[in-house]
């Protein structure tokens, strides 16, 4: 602790991560994962993982392929029930609740394979995220609708998709699809974003824009957890890192600590 304070006095802290300065341990815990386990008919995909996601920072979930990162996300969002354990969101247990209820409680996610609404336009993709209700029409009439369309326009501007407003999702280029995936999540009122490899395969310009957008959102108070393989991105964006391997949480802390650990590096790069 004291070492950190000294460094802060001596040199201005560089701005990796979200721009967050200070100790991530002090941030409020919004999502508590306790002793989560998942067994798929004999295969232990997740073993006793306990992790906290804190407000206002970006936590990156790293680990080799098959470590169980997406499975962890699936359990948080209710797409898969856990074998054991609990997840509390803002104090309330959300474990094994229906995915749509969890989404409405404020947890949003993207998918590694995007799962865009392929035959709908970009505008419709974003608009529909703002309309979770199952009623035949949305309340508020024309004025609310105009407000929603406004919001869509703003999101399109920020993600650089304004020209593609009426293009079908399946006709978009790769980078545009990634941004649409982000745009969709931006349209919701969620406070926690779970992003599954959101920037993979993006060219440098796009990825800078992407990180920029993330940082803006985090400043607004969104909590972000990203699954990422690209070390560059991990180094650049993380305020906190959680290292998962073979279903177990091996480490959870500040980027400096984790990235400098030789044992973890060995696992990550495949030398066991």
């Amino acid at each position: 602790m004291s070492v950190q304070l000294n460094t802060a006095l001596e040199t201005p802290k560089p701005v990796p991560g979200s721009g967050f300065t200070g100790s991530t341990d002090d941030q409020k815990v919004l999502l508590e994962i306790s002793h989560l386990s998942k067994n798929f008919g004999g295969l232990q995909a997740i073993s006793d993982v306990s992790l906290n996601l804190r407000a206002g920072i970006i936590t990156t979930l790293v680990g080799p392929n098959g470590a169980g990162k997406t499975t962890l996300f699936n359990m948080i969002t209710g797409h898969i029930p856990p074998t054991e354990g609990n997840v509390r969101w803002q104090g309330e247990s959300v474990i094994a609740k229906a995915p749509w209820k969890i989404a409405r409680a404020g947890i949003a996610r993207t998918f590694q394979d995007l799962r865009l609404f392929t035959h709908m336009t970009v505008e419709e993709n974003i608009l529909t995220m703002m309309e979770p209700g199952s009623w035949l029409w949305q309340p508020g009439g024309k004025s609310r609708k105009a407000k929603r369309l406004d919001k869509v326009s703003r999101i399109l501007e920020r993600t650089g998709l304004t020209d593609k407003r009426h293009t079908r999702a399946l006709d978009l280029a790769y980078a545009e699809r990634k941004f649409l995936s982000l745009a969709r999540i931006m349209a919701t009122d969620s406070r926690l974003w779970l992003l599954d490899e959101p920037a993979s395969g993006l060219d440098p310009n796009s990825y800078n824009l992407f990180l920029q957008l993330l940082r803006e959102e985090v400043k607004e108070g969104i909590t972000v957890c990203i699954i990422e393989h690209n070390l560059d991105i991990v180094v650049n964006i993380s305020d906190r890192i959680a290292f998962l391997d073979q279903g177990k949480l091996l480490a959870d802390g500040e980027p400096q600590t984790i990235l400098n650990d030789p044992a973890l590096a060995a696992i990550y790069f495949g030398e066991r």
Partner: protein
Amino acid sequence: MTAYILNLLVLISVYAILSTTLNFIIGYAGIFSLAHAVFFGIGGYTAALVAMHVTPEFFVAVPVAMAAAAVTSLLLALPALRVRGEYFVAASLGLQVLAVTLFSEWKSFTGGLGGVIGIPAVEMFGYPVYKPWQFLLMSLICLTIIIVIIRTLVHTSFGRSLKAIRDSESAALASGKNITVIKTLSVVLSSALAAVAGALYAFYMSFINVESFMLDTSVLVMAMVIIGGTATILGPLLGAALLMLMPSALTYLTFLPQTEIGSIQQIVYGMAMVLLMIFRPGGIVSSHPGGSK
């Protein structure tokens, strides 16, 4: 000649209602039902019963028919929509087969294999509608209203939710949509409107029996939707017209053995379905050959 054309047009409108309502769930929601003829039948039998025992007033018989179909569709939707899409297909197939047996055996409701005869002419506000051109007008109005309803729904948030579910259920769930309720609503709506077609059919023919409501009919309507074009408004209409005209068109090809016309018809639309799925899954009317699914 005019009688012949009027007859054809009435039948086309009836089937167009069926194809439009089936397209609502297949094309927009991605729910494949092979049981549409069941709701056609329930609509017909219910309307007939009401007309014969209570009143032939359109505005009584038809809503009751719609209610009957809506309730029955819940029987199908509630269990089958909770699980994967393939289950719904199987369950709808099951319902269709069960329904045919029920229609054939439940004599008090359906008259058994003999069917229901002597259905009185329908009345609108007390006015009997029995002249062919009057009936055609009535059917076309019903068709138009139904098209407007469906088109409106498709362009609202409900329509977007349906399409989202069709394109990716997991993403739709992750966006807070209660997909089971949405899917159930769409099935109930589609079935209730199909019952209108059934009522119209019963009044028009004055006689109905189980033969019009078997799996063959469900398949025919599905073919209309697919060939015409899914997820479009025009597609099902085109499909209905094409497939209703096909039998007559085929009789003009005199080199075809007349006894085989029924088979040939089915072979033609079977092959059309196959070829379309390979080359143009969106159907004839689709804007993109790749299909709007």
